[in-house]
């Protein structure tokens, strides 16, 4: 038995148990509608969490993503409003822009030996500020291509809809898994997260890896911005405030260590779905006041983390016991 995958297994088990509990209380939770919604509603979060996972694995953190998503939406909406470019062209421009933005942050982090927390915090202010400067109003997107994308879905039995953006999210997670676990770049990311000095001595190209990691995260944030703009059909500079923290929480619930170097991309998907499940459960319940909503979310987060820790301890001591 491989001990390093234990947090992942623990996460999956807890998620399944939690889903079962929800289902017992509200049988409608198992409908394809809810499952479809879970994927659609959390698509943007899942995509941005893939980028965040890689950043966290490398031992860093990216606080700018929430703002970058908002910026992306405004950028797309304004471009489509003020120019006659095709959305796909705008998407390409946007991805280039956010990737470059991420790379620039990575460059600062590496070259100036500044903590990622602070550089990306400044990036967060900057991206949100840039969104304000593009447009304060929320800008609707009315391009026909957008309508096609919004209306593309597969109707599952039971009237649930598997939408384009949900599928896109799953594909992104898959791509993330390949990058993290199957490429030399991924190995470098894990190495960097395990310890900078040792990684350098082992021959990790620290600068290149750092820049690439943040560029990837920027790219994912841009992609997530695209998905979000499809999801809401508009661009709004105040959107997705605090999403970076939700994404980080999802990554952590997914079993990735915040200190870097350990974790699985697939766990992040489970983490995202767990966050979605908590949301859905609270809406289904529908009796919580505004403040109890916040408290309960916090408590559920804590319970998940404690269960994960407990399960981990238990199985580890089992394993250790099995040896003697």
């Amino acid at each position, binding site marked *: 038995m491989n001990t390093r995958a234990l947090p992942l297994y623990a996460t999956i088990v807890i998620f399944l148990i939690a889903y079962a509990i929800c289902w017992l209380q*509200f049988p*409608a939770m198992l*409908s394809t*509608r*809810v499952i479809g*919604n879970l994927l*659609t*509603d959390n698509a*943007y979060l899942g995509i941005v969490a893939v980028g965040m996972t890689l950043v966290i694995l490398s031992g860093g953190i990216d606080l700018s993503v929430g703002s970058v998503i908002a910026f992306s939406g405004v950028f797309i909406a304004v471009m489509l409003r003020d120019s006659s470019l095709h959305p796909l062209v705008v998407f390409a421009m946007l991805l280039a822009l956010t990737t470059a933005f991420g790379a620039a942050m990575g460059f600062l982090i590496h070259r100036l030996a500044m903590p990622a927390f602070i550089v990306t915090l400044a990036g967060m202010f900057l991206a949100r500020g840039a969104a*304000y400067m593009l447009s*304060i*109003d*929320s*800008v*609707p997107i009315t391009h026909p291509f957008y309508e096609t994308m*919004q*209306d593309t879905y597969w109707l599952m039995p039971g009237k649930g809809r598997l939408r384009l953006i949900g599928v896109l999210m799953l594909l992104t997670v898959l791509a993330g898994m390949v990058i993290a676990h199957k490429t030399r770049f991924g190995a470098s990311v894990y190495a960097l997260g395990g310890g900078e000095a040792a990684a350098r001595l082992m021959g990790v190209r620290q600068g290149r890896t750092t820049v690439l990691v943040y560029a990837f995260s920027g790219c994912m944030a841009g992609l997530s911005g695209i998905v*979000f703009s499809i*999801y*809401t*059909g*508009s*661009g*709004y*500079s*105040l*959107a*997705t*405030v*605090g999403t970076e923290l939700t994404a980080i929480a999802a990554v952590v619930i997914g079993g990735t260590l915040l200190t870097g170097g350990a974790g699985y991309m697939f766990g992040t998907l489970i983490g995202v779905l767990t966050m*979605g499940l908590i*949301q*859905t459960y*609270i*809406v*289904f319940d*529908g*009796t*919580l*006041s*505004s*403040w109890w*909503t*916040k408290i309960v979310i916090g408590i559920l987060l804590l319970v998940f983390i404690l269960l994960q820790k407990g399960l981990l301890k238990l199985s580890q001591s089992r394993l250790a016991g099995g040896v003697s």
Partner: protein
Amino acid sequence: EGETVGFAQIGSESGWRAAETTLTKQQAEERGIDLRFSDAQQKQENQIAAIRSFVAQGVDAILLAPVVATGWDSVLEEAQEAEIPVVLLDRQVDSSDDLYLTAVGSDLVHEGEVAGEWLVNAVGDEECRIVELQGTTGSTPAIDRKTGFENAIEGHDNLEIVRSQTGDFTRAQGKEVMESFLQAENGGKDICALYAHNDDMAVGAIQAIKEAGLAPGDDILIVSIDAVPDIFKAMADGEANATVELTPNMAGPAFDALEAYWADGTMPEKFIQTESKLYTQENDPMGEYETRKDLGY
């Protein structure tokens, strides 16, 4: 009759919002409606997800207080396909109006206009340098209330907005920004009036003015929007001059419309506008305070 209604509320970012939630719950209880409440914590994505969940649950109607005007088309279509009527509360959306049953709310631009008109009348022909406390940058009320106010003072060259900054709709920011306005405008002697996008910021600003040794309501005229209890107290003390009411009871008209619709399919009007009533020091502020103070503001 045991109908189930889902209420997708924005959040609880202000006292006014809390009052709206309280009143909605009260109204639902009085009418025997089973209300499912969801707090989206100021996030559109949470509201969309909540509406989808309501649809999946098969509620009989959905109340939506949209956090922002854009981006509701696809989720409203989904509700329509499931034949669930949606009523918008207090803010508008820019979707086609056959996607929802009706919208209950006030006209935010109009609120700004009412406030502006009051000020225009109050100062007459005198020179007036106005400072403005904006709401959260980018939020619909901030944009619309600013527009409405500017519309109202347009053409009156004696009125001029000299400083305008965001106070984030909060008391603390209102006070801090007002302090810097006072600082920058000759200790406040050059300011003739303050226009605040909500009462909370005005209340904060009033304290700043007092601490600067000036008399709010006298040295500096104060007009704001919302009509929350605390501003009435200030008016009673002569420290504020006028406020424009935005009633938190949006649910009452909404349930009326829904009940008619459920009963015999009556289609209400597409926009049920609540009154933007102006209150000044003459309108028995203490009495108004008493009637409102227990509404959960």
